């Protein structure tokens, strides 16, 4: 049966576990909330990963991890733009710019980061393409999945706890009476704090700050725990008034009804 489904029913960690146990070769394609990730495996080991349109060429990965200077990077892009990553890797090793170990370690780090980002995706459709092996023209790694699975499980537990604490992102936040003085907040926390207003839902604050569900929940949880903010119904939101809580629309009759209930309960 085709391995396809929804991340809500089958998490990334569970998928990695399955691929690891079945020693699968192929590519896991995940269509997330805003981009697509492709993770390639060979015999149950991570071989290659890409996400969205991110530039994942070897030169860029090495430059971002400070293994290539700006000048070296520019030169490579200008003169060796036509080379495959494998050819470029060999040329860089032969020229003494980097070692084979540097290349593999940095690619492993880059691919691992993509998997970590994938752990934060809770919405998305996935399918596994057994006919799509890791790309031949790119440098593949062979990374055991066990450590990533353990890390993913840890993150999943955190995610479940955060969902319990903040079940709905459609609620808003408001400041408590505790002043924000002498509080050390990170840049991300300040970005969230600056949008706290009963008019803004937590989801809107996340979207404005380009944060995913996990990131916003982590920050809001911290602010709630510190007693700096509290959850409130968004101002101006259409209140889902209970469908006819009272059998009458008349306010006085409603009060009379509640008083009758009070009298009855007292007499029990």
């Amino acid at each position, binding site marked *: 049966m085709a391995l396809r489904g929804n991340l809500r029913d089958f998490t990334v960690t569970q998928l990695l576990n399955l691929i690891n146990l079945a020693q699968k070769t192929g590519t896991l394609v995940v269509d997330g909330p805003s981009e697509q990730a492709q993770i390639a495996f060979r015999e149950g080991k991570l071989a290659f990963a890409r996400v969205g349109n991110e530039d994942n060429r070897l030169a860029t990965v090495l430059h971002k991890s400070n293994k290539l200077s700006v000048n070296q990077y520019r030169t490579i892009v200008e003169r060796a733009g036509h080379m495959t990553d494998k050819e470029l890797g060999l040329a860089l090793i032969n020229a003494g710019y980097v070692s084979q170990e540097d290349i593999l370690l940095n690619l492993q780090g880059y691919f691992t980061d993509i998997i970590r980002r994938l752990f934060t995706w809770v919405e998305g459709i996935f399918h596994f393409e057994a006919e799509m092996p890791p790309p031949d023209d790119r440098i593949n790694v062979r990374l055991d999945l066990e450590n990533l699975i353990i890390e993913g499980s840890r993150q999943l537990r955190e995610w479940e706890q955060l*969902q319990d604490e*903040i079940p709905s992102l459609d609620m808003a936040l408001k400041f408590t009476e505790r002043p924000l003085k002498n509080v050390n907040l990170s840049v991300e926390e300040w970005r969230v704090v600056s949008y706290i207003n009963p008019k803004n839902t937590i989801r809107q604050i996340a979207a404005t700050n380009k944060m995913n569900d996990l990131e916003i929940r982590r920050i809001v949880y911290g602010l*709630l725990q510190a007693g700096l903010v509290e959850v409130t119904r968004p101002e101006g939101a259409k209140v889902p008034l209970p469908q006819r809580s009272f059998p009458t629309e008349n306010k006085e009759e409603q*009060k009379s009804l509640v008083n009758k*209930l*009070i009298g009855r*309960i007292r007499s029990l």
Partner: protein
Amino acid sequence: MQTVKMVVTGPFSAGKTEFIQSVSEIDVVSTERKISGKEERSVKESTTVAMDFGRITVDEDLVLYLFGTPGQKRFDFMWEILSEGMLGFIVMVDSTRPETFREARSILETFRAYAPTPYVVAANKQDKKDAWEIEDMRHALRLDAKTKLLPCTATDRASVKSILLELLYSILAEMESGK
């Protein structure tokens, strides 16, 4: 015949069924089933899977129905259905099981999102020696000073009456404030 309803919610084994049984004039229509999970079975033998249903007749024209929600999270699809049209709700929390406080908080937030009706939090099993102090529970549940957190013993009718009355007072106060 006019009918109104209140909802009794809270985590698994918080005492919701007992609460309703203490004041209902009919035998509670319960949908209890034997528990399959080993961990949950160590707490109690059976649990509510759809809802509990109790009744208090006020007079020949008015009846109050009490609905108890299932506590286990996998039955939470029932919560929204049960919350429709409620006058208010009671969140039951087992004062002796701090491991359920976070879930109680989550249930409270979920119900607040369903409907902006008044609610009270009942700290059940306050008669047990290992029950948490009310003020400690207030901090653990992150309830502000305005939220009513009331000591409760779900098996004691007088205690249950006082919880229901406090909820009704809150409903009345909200009506009078014109909210």
